[in-house]
């Protein structure tokens, strides 16, 4: 079964809107979880799953599939939403998020679902993605590896071990995307532990690095295309995003990093997203 392809930016925007609604419903049903990150990543996930990546939802272990490694595992709801809309499972199933016995664990688990990695402990995903990319090269498999990282997890030293490794082995089948939203649990990243210009840091480590607006579809698509053309080195796309994007009360609020909307808040969020949808639909 070929992946669902959306070929216009309008369709991709509508999909992101759908994913945001799915995330809100999932989190409200769960009663706990992370809201800001998944909402901020919705546009990138829309492009990755419905424009960029190759996969077969009827054969999740297809050896030729592109791999998505969600290093910041707390953003699980956006991964579940995108995979559900892509056909890996039914959307309604994801409403069991965080419930006992549900395969939709609070942080993704490859024991429970056909996700690439079990993640959550920060600073690990990029290293695992390196291992997967290396295996792809050893097997001359043409797949690409997309690793989603948070800005906060760049405070983990282990992240930089993986950055060096990917550069040493010239893993050009690896694209990392950093969700640069400037929030972490205790506040603003630059106050908790300054990260500065991540793109410059990656360049200094031997990577191709591109900074983009993580909500601008042209920029997302063009950065992924540039990554594909870059040979001999991995690419980091630093995506500047708005945490909580699309939901006014959560937008740019670090307090919404690690909590879920209550019923009334969810209702308001879904109303706002419905209004946004009408605006997108009215676009040419």
């Amino acid at each position: 079964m070929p992946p669902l392809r959306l070929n216009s930016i309008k369709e991709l925007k509508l999909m992101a809107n759908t994913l945001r609604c799915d995330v809100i419903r999932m989190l409200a049903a769960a009663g706990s979880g992370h809201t800001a990150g998944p909402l901020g990543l919705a546009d990138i996930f829309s492009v990755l799953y419905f424009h960029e990546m190759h996969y077969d939802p009827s054969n999740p272990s297809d050896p030729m599939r592109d791999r998505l490694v969600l290093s910041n595992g707390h953003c699980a709801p956006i991964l579940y939403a995108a995979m559900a809309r892509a056909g890996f499972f039914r959307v309604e199933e994801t409403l069991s998020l965080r419930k006992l016995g549900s395969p939709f664990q609070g942080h993704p688990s490859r024991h429970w679902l056909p996700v690439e990695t079990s993640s959550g402990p920060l600073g690990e995903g990029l290293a695992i993605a390196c291992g997967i990319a290396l295996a792809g090269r050893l097997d001359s498999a043409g797949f690409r590896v997309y690793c989603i990282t948070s800005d906060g997890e760049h405070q983990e030293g282990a992240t930089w071990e993986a950055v060096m490794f990917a550069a040493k082995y010239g893993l050009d089948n690896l694209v990392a995307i950093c969700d640069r939203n400037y929030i972490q649990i205790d506040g603003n990243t630059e106050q908790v532990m300054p990260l500065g210009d991540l793109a410059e840091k990656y360049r200094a480590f031997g990577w191709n690095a591109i900074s983009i607006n993580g909500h601008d579809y042209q920029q997302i698509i063009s950065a992924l295309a540039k990554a594909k053309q870059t040979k001999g080195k991995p690419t980091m796309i630093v995506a500047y995003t708005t945490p909580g994007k699309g939901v006014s009360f959560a937008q740019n609020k670090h307090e919404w990093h690690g909590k879920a909307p209550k019923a009334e808040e969810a209702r308001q969020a879904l109303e706002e997203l419905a209004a946004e949808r009408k605006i997108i639909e009215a676009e040419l």
Partner: protein
Amino acid sequence: MNFVQEMHLKDIFGPLASAATREAFGDAVAKIGELDQNVVALSADVAGSVQLSKFASKFPNRFFNVGVAEQNLASVAAGLGYSGKTVFIGAFAAFCPGRNWEQIRTTICYGEANVKIEGSHAGLDVGEDGATHQMLEDLALMRCLPNMTVICPCDYNEAYKAVFAAWKTPGPFYIRCTRGKLPIFTSEETPFELGKLNLLCDGSDLAIVATGNMVFPSLVASSILEKEGISVAVANMHTISHPDAAALEKLARHCGAIVTVEDHQVKGGLGSAVCEALSCSYPVPVIRHGVQMSFGESGPGQQVLSKHGLDAEGIAKVARQHANKR
């Protein structure tokens, strides 16, 4: 001494060749590399020390050096494992698993990756490098992890077999290796079965259950005590993660008391594993002989071990105190 014939031991009183178990790890992985194209290996700037350089020189395209980065070592290995590779990684036990325990837990054990870990230079045996590098807590760290099989081989031949068993058995393995050379007293015919206790010599007054580099001195201790009229059984527990409960119970019933011997802290390692197993079947006094919750120090490995009573004389002394306690 009442040696168990099926164990096919060499003459422990005769001249014996010696080798470090890390050498066996390196030789076995290099051999497996010939047999299995799907095997890859990684090290963290200590390929020569942990002997994976043997694999690296034969299969340079399947060997990766991550530099001084044990956390990355574990996680990259997991990614390779998820992609269908059988992965051997090796570094100093003080840092692998000492430094990268969480990566081993999450990416290798929870992630169910087919990764075989060599923790080399373990124990006081490492000697001159001193306390920072004398890893005495690795068995405890690895033994508590779901999905992990932990092996502590007693000599070159057993280590070689352990690596082959790990290769043939899907799932995470931790194999503890020594820097120092150990007498090679088992033979190619000595049985090696995962999770099986190897009774090496029989006895009736006490049983010693030893692991790794402590198995050979335990046999010598038994011979010392035999001359004093004390009959001491010696068993080799190579699989720390999966105690052979039935065999331990049999030993407990037969001997009435057990002394465990390990080059490791007395909390959390072999001794604890034996206590856990016997406490739910046939509790008898278990005296845990090992490092008594302290750090080591520099000196020749044998001398450091002796200072902690971890040589034949020291083991005999403890065994003497506890024989015929029932």
